[in-house]
């Protein structure tokens, strides 16, 4: 049985003048899959992700995200995805409850649903009694877990995570991944970039971008077999060392 595809990209390309930031990438992501999107700085990950999120128009090629076309339906894409990065997450001067209400409201959830979601999130994250705490006062790890939960508050088809765990302590980093697994079991597709190669191994499949192209795409265990490597770190070094381009 063929699984439903949440992302279908074919020859997706983005040029800036003479510079080809993303060079004909072709791949699919299945519903509920945890998909790792790897690449060295400057390989084109951010540009590719911006196209998939409906924030930047491709130069050529095609892609659908959650069934919507990246050229014509980018507003619908934005409504049906979640997004979280290390830089942009929550409003520091709003409380936990206010942040949930704010994002719930933006995504058009009913008051009743927001109420239910607030109760669920507070319980899931063990934040009982902290609803009125300003987000600014939470430790980084809690902020990141809360930011993830709020990024999926509207039960999107897919959530894009851009280096969600940078600088987080190792125990909290793992708690964060438990939340990712749970969301994936509920059918939410996870599209994640990371510099931690052990996290790449938690993904069902990973792609590695080199100089704007996808040079490898498979499950971590198959990639390790193909490159006769003991870890994803070795696979990554092997592929990324070929890069001609450097920088961000």
């Amino acid at each position, binding site marked *: 049985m063929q699984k439903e595809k949440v992302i279908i990209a074919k020859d997706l390309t983005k040029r800036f003048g003479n510079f080809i930031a993303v060079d004909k990438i072709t791949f699919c992501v299945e519903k509920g899959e945890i998909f790792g999107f790897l690449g060295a700085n400057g390989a084109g990950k951010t540009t590719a992700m911006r196209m998939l999120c409906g924030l930047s128009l491709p130069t050529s090629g095609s892609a659908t995200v959650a069934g919507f076309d990246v050229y014509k339906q980018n507003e619908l894409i934005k409504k049906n995805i979640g997004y979280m990065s290390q830089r942009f997450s929550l409003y520091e001067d709003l409380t936990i409850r206010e942040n949930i209400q704010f994002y719930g409201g933006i995504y058009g959830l009913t008051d009743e649903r927001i109420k239910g979601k607030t109760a669920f999130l507070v319980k899931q994250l063990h934040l009982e009694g902290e609803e009125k705490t300003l987000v600014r006062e939470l430790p980084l790890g809690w902020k990141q877990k809360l930011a993830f939960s709020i990024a999926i508050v509207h039960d999107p088809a897919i959530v894009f995570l851009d*280096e969600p765990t*940078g600088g987080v302590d*190792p*125990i909290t980093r*793992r708690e964060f991944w438990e939340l990712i697994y749970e969301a994936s079991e509920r059918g939410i597709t996870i599209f994640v970039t990371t510099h931690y190669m*052990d996290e790449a191994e938690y993904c069902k499949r990973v792609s590695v971008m080199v100089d704007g192209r996808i040079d490898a795409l498979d499950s971590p265990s198959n990639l390790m077999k193909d490159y006769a490597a003991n870890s994803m*770190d070795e696979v990554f070094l092997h592929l990324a060392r070929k890069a001609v381009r450097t*920088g961000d």
Partner: protein
Amino acid sequence: MQAVIAENIIKTYRTKKTVAGALKGISFTVDKGEIFGIIGPDGAGKTSLFRILTTLLLADSGYASVDGFDVVTDYKQIRNRVGYMPGKFSLYPDLSVQENLEFFATIFDTSIEENYDLIKDIYQQIEPFKTRKAGQLSGGMKQKLALSCALIHKPSVLFLDEPTTGVDAVSRKEFWEMLHRLKLQGITILVSTPYMDEAGLCDRVALIQKGEILSINTPKGVISEFGKPLWAIRANEMFPLMKSIKENKSVESCYPFGQYHHVVFKSQENSKELLEQIAQKGNYTQVDIHSIEPNIEDCFMALMKE
């Protein structure tokens, strides 16, 4: 003489409502020519510690010296002797690569030519872009320029605050290779990082969390302190497997590590048999169980829980 001495350093930050203890009594020493790693997550106090040692911030109490000079009374001497690369890019974005380097050489009363040997290896990689404005460089090139500027006056002690954060695995590896070549020139290096796997590249490390040092040792020493057998287990159903293991009362901890879960039991007897039972009961498929050596991250998490 030790290159760096820190004795019971305490630093708190106060706002209207809260008092946050950034450093709660930090003590350690760094030998001359050593690469000493300060390993810990964001908020551990790494940057506060570096600012105190580079005389940019005063501690509430405690004593510290760098290259034999007191950080409070002899700050001028220290500023001449240390190189400091802050975590946030702090060069002049509207000066070119070469102008930035000349600026730092001039304020330290030296010239690029005088110490070119020291930076050659690093600077050559960005020299083709020497007329480009620093603000327009890529992350990796900014990092190399910042390191060149921190080295241009031939410091005896180099402080690098999270030089590899947000940098990809290939550039991180290259950066550490550069540090090892600098060590050969006799420079003492204090480097902080949130990446636990970089601990193995230091001569000695201090593991730090919430303003307290959890352990100071060689990387091998930290690992030998772990003290309990560690098991790695995998199956096709990783997430349910973790739930089953955590439910077992004999289990002390279970953390995912790439394709395996790492498991520690409260008591050491029959632990492999216990894991086999858990795997059988849950009908997990393609199970693999074997004993492994802990890594620094295993040790850090065990120490965090103590």
